């Protein structure tokens, strides 16, 4: 026999409590559905990672999968935007490995603003291989290291 210290509830109270619990859960599930639908719709791909597949498709087609690529950007180092740009590009270009700096044969230029990308490359000793648009640029060292 259990050592219940609490007084026992009537059958009606128990049934009402169980029904209330189930009803509250149904309400919670509907609230969750409404919230999630609105939230996901309003926060659709906030870092635009999906868009990177199209934006970096030309680079993925050109650079071999086993390459370690350098990485050049105009985003402010340490900012959330810079982190998102690097992480998004790394995900899309994997298994190619992106390493900050320009000390590799292939270098990804990942720019947020328009600029003279050829000149930017030259200032780092890089030759512009191809400008794929939308700030996606492929550089290559003139003398591969």
């Amino acid at each position, binding site marked *: 026999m*259990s*050592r*219940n*210290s*609490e*007084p*026992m*509830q*009537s*059958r009606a*109270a*128990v*049934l*009402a*409590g*169980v029904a*209330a*619990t*189930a009803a*509250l*859960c*149904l*309400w*919670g*599930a*509907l*609230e*969750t*559905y409404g*919230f*999630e*639908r609105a*939230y*996901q*719709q309003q*926060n*659709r*791909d906030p*870092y635009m*990672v*999906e868009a990177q597949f199209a934006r970096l498709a030309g680079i993925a087609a050109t650079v071999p*999968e*086993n390459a*370690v690529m350098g990485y050049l950007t105009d985003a402010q180092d340490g900012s959330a935007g810079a*982190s*998102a740009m*690097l*992480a*998004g590009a*790394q*995900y899309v270009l*994997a*298994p190619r*490995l992106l*390493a*900050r700096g320009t000390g590799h044969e292939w270098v990804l230029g990942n720019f947020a603003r328009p600029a003279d990308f050829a000149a930017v490359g030259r200032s780092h000793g890089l030759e512009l291989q191809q400008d794929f648009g939308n700030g996606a640029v492929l550089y290559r060292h003139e003398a591969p290291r």
Partner: protein
Amino acid sequence: MTGLAWVAEAVLLGCLLSWRWIGLSAIKPAWARVLLRAGAGAAGGMGLVSCLFFLLGVLAGSPAAAMVVELALLAWAALDLFRRRGSAPRMGVAAGRTPVLLAVSAVLVVAIATGAIAAGWQFNPLGNWDAWAIWNLRARFLASGAGLASRAWSPALGQMTHPDYPMLVSALVGRCWAFSHSVSPIAPQAVGYAFFLALLALVGGGVAALRGPVLGLLAALVLAASPALVHEVPAQYADVPLACYFAGAAVFAMLDEPIAGGILAGFAAWTKDEGALFLVVFGAAILIFRRQAFSRAAAGAMPGIALLVVFKLGLAHANSSSLLASSLPGAAQRVTEGSRYGAILASFGRELAGLGVGWYHPVLPLAAAALALRFDRSRAREAAFAGVVALGLLAGYFGVYSVTSNDLAWQLQTSLGRLLVQVWPLLLLAAFACLRVPQLAAATPVPRKRKAAVKERRTRA
């Protein structure tokens, strides 16, 4: 074969093995037994194939060998189960009747939760930040073969990608992509959803086995209607798998199946760094409450622990980004700053409130059930086991926040909500383990006047 089919194959393999090896034949009601075996099978199967793929497909460099071993295991388990069909003893204590309306409500709530999760799949198919910056990024490396898999833990990835994090989820998703020759987002979506269903099955089935069908269904209902948990499923992070392993390990320990509990605890350690803390807390709780089961639980956890040690010390030791290790310098000064504790406590309060949505909070149905059914003190020990594990984890998380060298506000804001999601099923398990079984409550002692009237009527008759 698509990535989805390979997730299904992992679940099927785990289910067949759990049907064969976990001795739950005495458990009633039958659906609780089915849920427990399916939940343990899904979680265990996905953990098993993750380990196999990491060992054979990644370290030995032969994904084909991993696939062959898996399929051979599947064929053997299916054949063995077929040979043994009908031989399992059907015994055990009588369980209360399963209320059909409650079961229908549970199915309905799971269906609505699935709709909410599907919204995430529709609008954010790649998941949230950590999915594509950590877990699935490393899965892409693991799936690439050709000697490139080791890039998944390369120091070149930088601290942002946490290349030393345990590999269960990444290896599982990478396996699906490698076997299907496709990097479809359906595989990580299906993995997250399978762990969500396994979690519901383990908690619902576990509470039903321990405390009867009504409480089991109520526990599953409350869990499936937990907005923060549902929100994490389409994120494709490792927190829902981890919550599943935490709850599964506790359930099987409470059902006196310590080996199965240990296996799931080992998989928790192979899922995320918090899993290592769980191993310590879980082991301590078993030593306190179920000392005789400790050695069997430890034996069950060994494969997961061994794989974690090989990975952390042998492969990823050069790029450790462990929050605790990186926080040690200057920790002595930080722990003396009283304002940190206030900030952490306030954040715990905020995030606990944030487990709900709008006016709804999952504590509401739990409170309704507790008010109606009351507590059964004779079950305090079972509740204490799950409660100690949950509180031990929360205390550990609190301790890490108190010493972290990262910006405290940022750290709390970006992680605490997910940590509470990991622990929430354990808290529910503790609460439902000590609620009074409704049949007991319904068998109310008849008041004296009514008792006398009944006696009188019987005498007349």
